[in-house]
């Protein structure tokens, strides 16, 4: 096994014992990245920064006081602003943008000694479920069962592809409606979206500010615990980040879940759900029951309305957040014709800079916020959001500790297969994940099995607010019992 295939936990231990240097570990990943161009996961490579950080990590390791993430090579989603390094949210409108500042998450990771290998592909402004809206072109899933190239999911598709293909040990992702959990499930890796407010959003390009959260995408649940530890915590620069203590996530992985109550929401058993997903879910239920958990049927009655509420609220917030891309302060500005004024500059710049899905969402958001429709759409959606959150509150008050659901309604699909579909068809990918963002809860996707074609399938666990520690523990039980060790056959 070459070093790029290691987990964070294994690399941490080997680095501390001096069995490998951070420079050699980083070189192993850089070699894998250069051999992995067919995946189109890394869109800006930063080998010089990586080696400089790795050398600093080696010095720190030699001093004997290195944190867990010291020397760990990571990929960073393009949505994170990284100082001096292109950060364009996979959009042409941010072409050439090199931030003069560092996002809080990357700053914390670098302070902990982590190494940045480069920036990762994603859907434009994180709007998509297949990584097909990216200005960099599609990222490709390392899993392949026939001639078709498959989507790694989205929006954190490059992150998922890079981790699943062992181009890096782990990656950052962000999740507004499922953008960490769906690609994790499509590629057979682990992805956790923390409680809203657990991780600072400062320096992350905003999509829908009341829903966005960053989280780790890793090979194992233990790695997710280690990396989330380094990412989480209060940040005075994000007024919505919670000023509460961050527990020791790795220490919570006791595998003791006896007597814990796992809720199974009947509304997630959708009409037309593939039998394989249904069977996977039943297997997951059995695994948790075998480990001593009490499994209880529950009802989350407003589940059906989560997707339409999400597709009002997220575009509304996006239309406001993306108003800043006007060709004045950063990024692309359209070439103007003689006599063009400032309005033409805005309109041409935004038409050239934004891709079709982003344009659509901005316009939907503009419409639902416009005079005359604000109450009918936006306020109604926010009321439904309150009801969705109340469904979860009631379940937790009744003693439920966590909720088990499928992560996605299908395995990874072929790139281009949805090209002619109605935009709403693509939105259905998020059916099991958006509720969690609307309610601000932590959710984690864990790989549990392969479908008949041989593609990975995942389950989702949803936790109580701020209870990532126990959520990771449940996920660890599921992971150990599922024993998912399959890797994509290397074709790239």
């Amino acid at each position, binding site marked *: 096994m070459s070093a790029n295939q290691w987990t964070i936990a294994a690399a941490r231990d080997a680095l501390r014992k001096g069995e490998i240097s951070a420079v050699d570990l980083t070189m192993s990943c850089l070699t894998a990245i250069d051999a992995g161009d067919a995946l189109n996961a890394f869109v800006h490579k930063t080998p010089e920064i990586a080696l400089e950080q790795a050398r600093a990590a080696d010095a720190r390791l030699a001093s004997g006081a290195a944190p867990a993430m010291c020397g760990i090579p990571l990929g960073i989603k393009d949505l994170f602003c990284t100082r001096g390094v292109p950060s364009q949210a996979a959009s042409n409108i941010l072409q*050439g*943008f*090199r*931030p*003069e500042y560092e996002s809080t998450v990357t700053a914390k990771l670098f302070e902990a000694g982590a190494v940045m290998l480069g920036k990762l592909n994603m859907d434009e402004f994180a709007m998509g479920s297949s990584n097909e809206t990216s200005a960099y072109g599609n990222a490709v899933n390392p899993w392949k069962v026939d001639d078709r190239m498959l989507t790694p999911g989205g929006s954190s598709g490059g992150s998922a592809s890079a981790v699943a293909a062992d181009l890096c040990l782990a990656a950052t992702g962000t999740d507004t409606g499922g953008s960490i959990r769906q690609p994790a499930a499509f590629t057979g890796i682990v992805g956790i979206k923390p*409680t*809203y*407010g657990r991780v600072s959003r400062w320096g992350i390009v905003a999509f829908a500010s*009341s829903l966005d959260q960053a989280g780790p995408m890793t090979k194992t649940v233990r790695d997710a615990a280690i990396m989330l530890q380094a990412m989480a915590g209060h940040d*005075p620069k994000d*007024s*919505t980040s*919670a*000023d509460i203590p961050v527990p020791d996530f790795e220490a919570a992985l006791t595998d003791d879940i006896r007597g814990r109550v796992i809720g199974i929401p009947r509304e997630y058993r959708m009409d037309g759900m593939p039998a394989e997903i249904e069977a996977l879910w039943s297997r997951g239920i059995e695994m948790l029951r075998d480990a001593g958990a009490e499994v209880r049927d529950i009802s989350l009655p*407003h589940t*059906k*309305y989560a*997707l*339409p*509420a999400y*597709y*009002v609220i997220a575009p509304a917030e996006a239309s406001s957040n993306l108003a800043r891309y006007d060709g*004045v*302060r*950063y*990024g*692309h500005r359209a070439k*103007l014709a003689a006599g*063009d*004024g*400032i*309005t*033409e*500059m805005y309109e041409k710049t*935004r*038409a050239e800079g934004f891709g079709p899905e982003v*344009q*659509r969402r*901005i*316009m939907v958001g*503009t*419409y*639902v916020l*416009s005079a005359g429709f604000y109450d009918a*759409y936006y*306020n*109604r*959606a*926010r*009321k*439904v*959001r*309150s009801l969705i*959150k109340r469904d979860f509150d009631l379940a937790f008050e009744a003693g439920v500790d966590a909720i088990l659901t499928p992560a996605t309604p299908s395995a990874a699909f072929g790139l281009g297969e949805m090209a002619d579909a*109605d*935009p*709403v068809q693509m939105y259905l990918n998020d059916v099991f994940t958006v509720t969690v963002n*609307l*309610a601000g809860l932590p959710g984690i996707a864990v790989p549990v099995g392969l479908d008949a074609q041989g593609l990975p399938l995942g389950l989702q666990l949803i936790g109580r*607010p701020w209870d990532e520690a126990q959520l990771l523990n449940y996920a660890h039980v599921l992971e150990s019992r599922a024993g998912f060790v399959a890797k994509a056959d290397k074709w790239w």
Partner: protein
Amino acid sequence: MAIDIDTARKVAKLARIRVEEADLPRLAGQLSGILGFMEQLNEVDVTGVEPMTSVTPMRLKRRADVVTDGNIQAQVLKNAPDAREGFFAVPKVVE
């Protein structure tokens, strides 16, 4: 609710995104589809329900109203497509 071509044109204008006349029918169709999907929300009884303003029940932090940053004009202008003499430059605005 179906979006007609005039509404699509108006929304594009409000969003400051240029859409060619020939592309408006397709856009109107797509927006109608998406908004049609949202019509399901009308089935929900929201009587007496407060619209959510904050997903976690917390009061926003406050800090003293003092300058915490500044004197970084060069950094602020660094990424501007057109910056001159310490300012962002835009086409002439005559109202």
